[in-house]
């Protein structure tokens, strides 16, 4: 098959954009294939549209959601403004066992889910990279913090991360722009917790890929609030606002939207991937493109689906699957144990502007000691605010009295919401459904993923610890809870083609290349050998940039 391009990148989201930038900047003529359509930020971004310009004013077009986005609507961002950045569930079906619900939240458009992502950015440390080796779950990571640290520096300095340096070994600092401010209620909780619990319960501002000063031609945040609706000033990182323009500037980028990749073509004589097969999303025509190297960046579950669907005599169980690990070890962070409480004594204080992040409390469990009941740990996102007019809906009162009362904000409330590490388990897996197909005739995924004992214990502990801390900090009306969120809804799914130290127990090597197919790289969440509890996107970005550099070095040495 003729190599039409030096490189093909499948996916244009967080990792696809990084692969495109790094490969084109290193001289490769690169084709980026995106399953969805293009978007026009001038028209499609709606972060400044007031509610009265939306028919249901934030209630959502319920009948359309029930018909077309009955899965996607579980995500808070799939609303009357941003629903267009989420897939149509009728066109993109998947199946689950009846007793194992899974919410698969997807975005198919140029930019992928980088348009709607949560923007939280936390480095991993060796506490995370050594975890599998230490407690025996999953396989050992083939890399350590020292391998990825320069690549964290590389991606962070390009995209811009705001946050506070803490000097913690287990949550390394990055190259931070000034962090956003904690509000006065958050400062109070921080200060009251500081002398308690041996100083292990730290409240800091969320580290986010949102600019607090102008950076690389992008403007500082203007605090309008709803990032998931888009950002015309490109103040938060998205591939279409940041990496894809950099790739385009090289003159070596070709971006093809409406390109649904059905499989990667394997050449048994060379043992390499020779290209990809694409179904045009609009015409349904089948097209093939050839290249010397293929980067699979379609998101953890989509990438697994493409590989599982790339069957040949050499790889009857899916491409690069000689280990049998492809599609297994699916992880997603277990989220939703937490607590809320009220903060007294700050009634004369309020905030102005819509700060697009909250607080973060780094992991404190199993950092220096070992909890008897569970391994690994969790971190909390959260923050404080005062309720607005919305509270008028839920209580007594009418007339001029009510209207006047709602002119002042309600009580301060502070909450902690946990995100826990999920263990890699071989029976948490995706496979091709034998019957269901998507709108382009590609087999749908069957997803069988369940929370297991360790995740349930983490969720419980998150709730108990959050309540203990809020009590200790002197908050009122402390109420703990555990939300019963299905796996998938955290939208941190990962692990389907894990990296490892050998070809028998893993799919990818230490540089994200498939053991079985040396010119095939998988750099999205599929590559993860464990999940840690940090929001994962910055790690995917760093691994992608690192893999791209590796691929080009090998190509320059004529190894690929």
């Amino acid at each position, binding site marked *: 098959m003729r190599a039409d391009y030096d490189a093909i990148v499948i996916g244009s989201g967080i990792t696809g954009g990084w692969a495109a930038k790094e490969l084109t900047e290193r001289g490769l003529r690169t084709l980026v294939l995106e399953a969805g359509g293009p978007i026009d930020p001038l028209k499609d971004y709606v972060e400044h549209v007031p509610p009265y310009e939306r028919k249901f004013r934030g209630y959502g077009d319920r009948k359309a959601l029930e018909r077309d986005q009955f899965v996607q609507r579980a995500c808070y961002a799939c609303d009357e403004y941003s629903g267009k950045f989420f897939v149509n569930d009728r066109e993109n079906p998947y199946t689950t066992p009846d007793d194992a619900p899974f919410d698969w939240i997807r975005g198919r458009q140029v930019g992928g889910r980088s348009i709607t992502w949560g923007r939280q950015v936390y480095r991993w440390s060796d506490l995370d990279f050594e975890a599998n080796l230490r407690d025996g779950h999953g396989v050992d990571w083939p890399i350590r913090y020292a391998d990825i640290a320069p690549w964290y520096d590389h991606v962070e300095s390009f995209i811009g991360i705001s946050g506070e340096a803490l000097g913690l070994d287990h949550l390394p600092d990055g190259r931070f722009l000034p962090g956003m401010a904690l509000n006065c209620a958050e400062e109070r909780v921080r200060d009251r917790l500081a002398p308690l619990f041996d100083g292990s319960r730290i409240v800091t501002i969320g580290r986010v890929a949102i600019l607090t000063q102008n950076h690389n031609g992008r403007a500082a945040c203007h605090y309008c609030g709803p990032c998931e609706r888009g950002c015309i000033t490109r103040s938060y990182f998205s591939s279409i606002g940041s990496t894809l323009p950099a790739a385009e500037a090289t003159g070596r980028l070709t971006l093809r939207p409406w390109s649904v990749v059905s499989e990667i073509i394997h050449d048994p004589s060379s043992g390499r991937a020779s290209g990809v097969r694409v179904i045009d999303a609009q015409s349904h025509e089948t097209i093939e493109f050839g290249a010397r190297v293929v980067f699979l960046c379609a998101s953890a579950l989509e990438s697994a689906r493409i590989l599982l669907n790339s069957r040949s005599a050499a790889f009857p169980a899916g491409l690069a699957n000689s280990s049998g690990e492809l599609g297994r070890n699916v992880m997603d962070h277990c989220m939703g144990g937490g607590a809320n409480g009220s903060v007294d004594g700050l009634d004369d204080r309020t*905030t102005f502007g819509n*700060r697009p992040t909250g607080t973060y409390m780094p992991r404190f469990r199993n950092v220096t000691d070992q909890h008897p009941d569970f391994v690994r740990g969790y971190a909390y996102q959260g923050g404080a605010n005062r*309720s607005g*007019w919305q509270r008028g809906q839920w209580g007594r009162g009418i007339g001029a009295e009510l209207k006047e009362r709602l002119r002042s904000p309600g009580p301060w409330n502070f909450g902690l919401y946990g995100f826990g590490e999920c263990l890699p388990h071989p029976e948490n897996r995706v496979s091709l459904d034998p019957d269901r197909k998507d709108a382009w005739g590609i087999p749908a995924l069957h997803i069988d993923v369940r929370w297991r004992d360790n995740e349930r214990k983490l969720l419980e502990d998150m709730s108990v610890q959050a309540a203990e801390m809020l009590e200790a900090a002197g908050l009122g009306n402390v109420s703990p809870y555990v939300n019963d969120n299905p796996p998938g809804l955290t939208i941190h799914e990962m692990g389907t083609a894990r990296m490892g130290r050998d070809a028998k127990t893993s799919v990818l090597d230490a540089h994200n290349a498939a053991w079985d197919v040396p010119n095939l790289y998988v750099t999205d969440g599929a590559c993860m050998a464990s999940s840690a509890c940090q929001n994962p996107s910055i790690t995917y970005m760093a691994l992608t940039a690192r893999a791209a550099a590796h691929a080009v070095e090998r190509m320059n040495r004529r190894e690929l």
Partner: protein
Amino acid sequence: MKRRQALRVLGSSAAAAALLPFAPSDAFAAGRAIHDRLQRGERVVDGLTDAQLALVAAVAGTIIPATDTPGAREARVHEWINVVYADWMSDSERSVFSAGLESLDEMSQREHGTTVAQLAEPDRLALLTSVDAMAFAPQPYGAPPPAFRRLKQLVIHGYYTSEIGQREELKVVIIPGRYDSCRQMQPAPGGGGSDR
């Protein structure tokens, strides 16, 4: 009444499904009629009756009255509630909502001898204050929430998300340009609340 019911059947629970029992030519004609209505900017599903709209407008104006800023009646909240009623609520929610409106008028007739819409403002405030107190009093275990709660919820949401609510009452600043983390409270409308 019969005509209204027929239209509601046609419009509710997805027009397409309702068309199925029609012979193909009738279905085509009915489909054309729906398109014509949409083109004229009308809704496919019948909304509230004029009398119901007047009732909702009056209730809205009493819950959020005009003071130094316009109230819910001026913000035409009843029109938005009509949109929610027709195009968002399920059939069963619609009937609960309509029954709730009916019971308000019954109570008004019983106590004041006229409809809610016809009441003098002080009488309407007195009536709705007692309805509100009942609606937010502790409810028997397992009882459905009082219908008035949803009406009030819609009035408040509709008002504060309206152009008048956002611009004149809340004075929402869409592009604040900065974040003040600990501001001394100003006695200004809107306070620290946000629409977002």
